[in-house]
């Protein structure tokens, strides 16, 4: 309890002793502080306690100067619990470097593999012609590695009514057409009985492009049947084609036009007997041979017809052919573009019996 003396509170010894710590650390308000100071001056016990508190405080403050052996501190600091370890490992930055880089490498490899597998490169090459090999290969699916072609006069092609006589035989094989005659020349060559074979002339790769503007020899002897002397080996013009070392400038600048070739296949009896009749009927519809060989060229057990026909007669042509049997027809994209109103057909009739 405190008494009042001259308007100021006087502290009891108990209260004064309890307030000594707050007095030392400065927690008292000025009035209380003054009261405690007054009391201390007159009380010997308070003076002793005040000294003890100051001594104890100094000692307590020095507790922070103590230390433990460094190895013990290290040991304690590395303490982990299951939860703290889980928390630590859940952070990507805490993972071992080797593991992190391995995951990155696997991820990149996987993404690359997925990209390579999933992107339709053939279609992409068609959509962006600049991706392709800048060469008029068959639908961009073939890579031309080499070409042995027969050079010849363009007269026939102009007669054929093909819009681009220059390009007509620029990639032609021995039969004069890379997509038609050549294709049939490659297939089943073992069965070829007689075959008009052109004089194969190796041509530098760089000169062989569909729209190539490179000059060609003007006159070359017409095809001569030499089946007896030359084995019916696959024609030296593979489907694969390599990008020309000197690709035609035109093909780079001009947008690639897409032509269509109609392929028809039939299988009929008495082919030898009916073939001339079919030739006549086709010619009556305005068909003109488009390749090197004559219409109805016999090869192995079949007959080959490569011709251009007015578009208006397409339906009639099919009627005529269906009269002999079922016809399978497909349209293929081809770099050779026919003039408007003209269709190009490659018809193969196989003998089904005798």
């Amino acid at each position, binding site marked *: 309890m405190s008494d009042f003396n001259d308007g100021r509170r006087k502290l009891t010894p108990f209260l004064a002793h*309890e307030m*000594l*710590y*707050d007095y030392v650390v400065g*927690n008292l308000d000025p009035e209380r502080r003054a009261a405690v100071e007054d009391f201390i001056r007159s009380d010997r016990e308070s003076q002793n*306690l005040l*000294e*003890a*508190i*100051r*001594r*104890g*405080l100094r*000692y*307590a*403050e*020095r*507790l*922070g*100067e*103590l*230390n*433990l*052996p460094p190895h*013990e*501190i290290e*040991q*304690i*600091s590395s*303490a*982990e*619990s299951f*939860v*703290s370890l889980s*928390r*630590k490992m859940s952070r990507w930055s805490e993972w071992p470097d080797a593991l992190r880089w391995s995951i990155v490498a696997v991820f990149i490899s996987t993404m690359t593999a997925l990209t390579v597998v999933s992107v339709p490169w053939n279609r992409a090459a068609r959509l962006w012609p600049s991706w392709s090999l800048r060469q008029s290969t068959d639908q961009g699916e073939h890579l031309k590695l080499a070409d042995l072609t027969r050079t010849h006069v363009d007269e026939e092609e102009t007669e054929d009514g093909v819009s681009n006589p220059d390009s007509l035989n620029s990639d032609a094989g021995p039969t004069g057409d890379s997509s038609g005659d050549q294709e049939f020349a490659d297939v089943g060559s073992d069965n070829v009985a007689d075959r008009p074979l052109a004089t194969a002339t190796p041509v530098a790769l760089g000169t062989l492009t569909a729209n190539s503007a490179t000059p060609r020899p003007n006159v070359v002897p017409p095809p001569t049947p030499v089946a007896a002397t030359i084995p019916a080996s696959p024609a030296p013009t593979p489907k694969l084609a390599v990008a020309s070392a000197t690709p035609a400038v035109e093909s780079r600048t001009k947008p690639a036009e897409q032509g269509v070739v109609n392929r028809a296949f039939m299988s009929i009896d008495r082919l030898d007997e009916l073939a001339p009749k079919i030739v006549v009927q086709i010619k009556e519809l305005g068909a003109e041979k488009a390749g090197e060989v004559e219409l109805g060229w016999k090869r192995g057990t079949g007959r080959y017809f490569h011709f251009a026909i007015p578009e208006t007669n397409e339906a009639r042509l099919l009627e005529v052919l269906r009269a002999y049997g079922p016809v399978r027809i497909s349209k293929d994209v081809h770099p050779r573009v026919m003039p408007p109103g003209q269709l190009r057909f490659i018809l193969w009739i196989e003998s089904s019996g005798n």
Partner: protein
Amino acid sequence: MKLDQVRSIALFFALGLMDQKSAQQAAQKTIASLKAKYGDRPLSPEAPLWTTAAVLAECRKEWKAHARSLPGHRVRTGDEHFVFPTDFDLNVWRRYQKDAPEEDVMATLMKHLFHATDEELAEGLQTSVGTIRFRLGKSVRQLGLSIRSQTLGSSKTDRSHE
């Protein structure tokens, strides 16, 4: 990892429990628990690893668990376990630690090892600021009296030897 707080925690248990094995276990558990709850990365390079209140609360929890399991309640730890200044008398602390209530010991250590404010101590020990000040005052008075008696005892011993 910042070692200031780790050192303070280790010292808190070493001086508070005065049993090397128990102190080490309690400190390790406290550190692991703090890492689990608050991580082991400070928010900024200057910031402490954990808040003082969080450390105090965790220390109090582990203290309670380990103080109860000590055989004979308190076991002394030798001077060789500490690195202390030459003029520092650890026996004063030993006597005080043996006689004082553990809440007072805890408050004193927390105040001077973690440099906590009275409010942080009150939060960490889950009591009022007034109680904290009372405990601290009692503790330092007891420590001061202990130092005085130690000094008087040693001077008497010196005189008897003369």
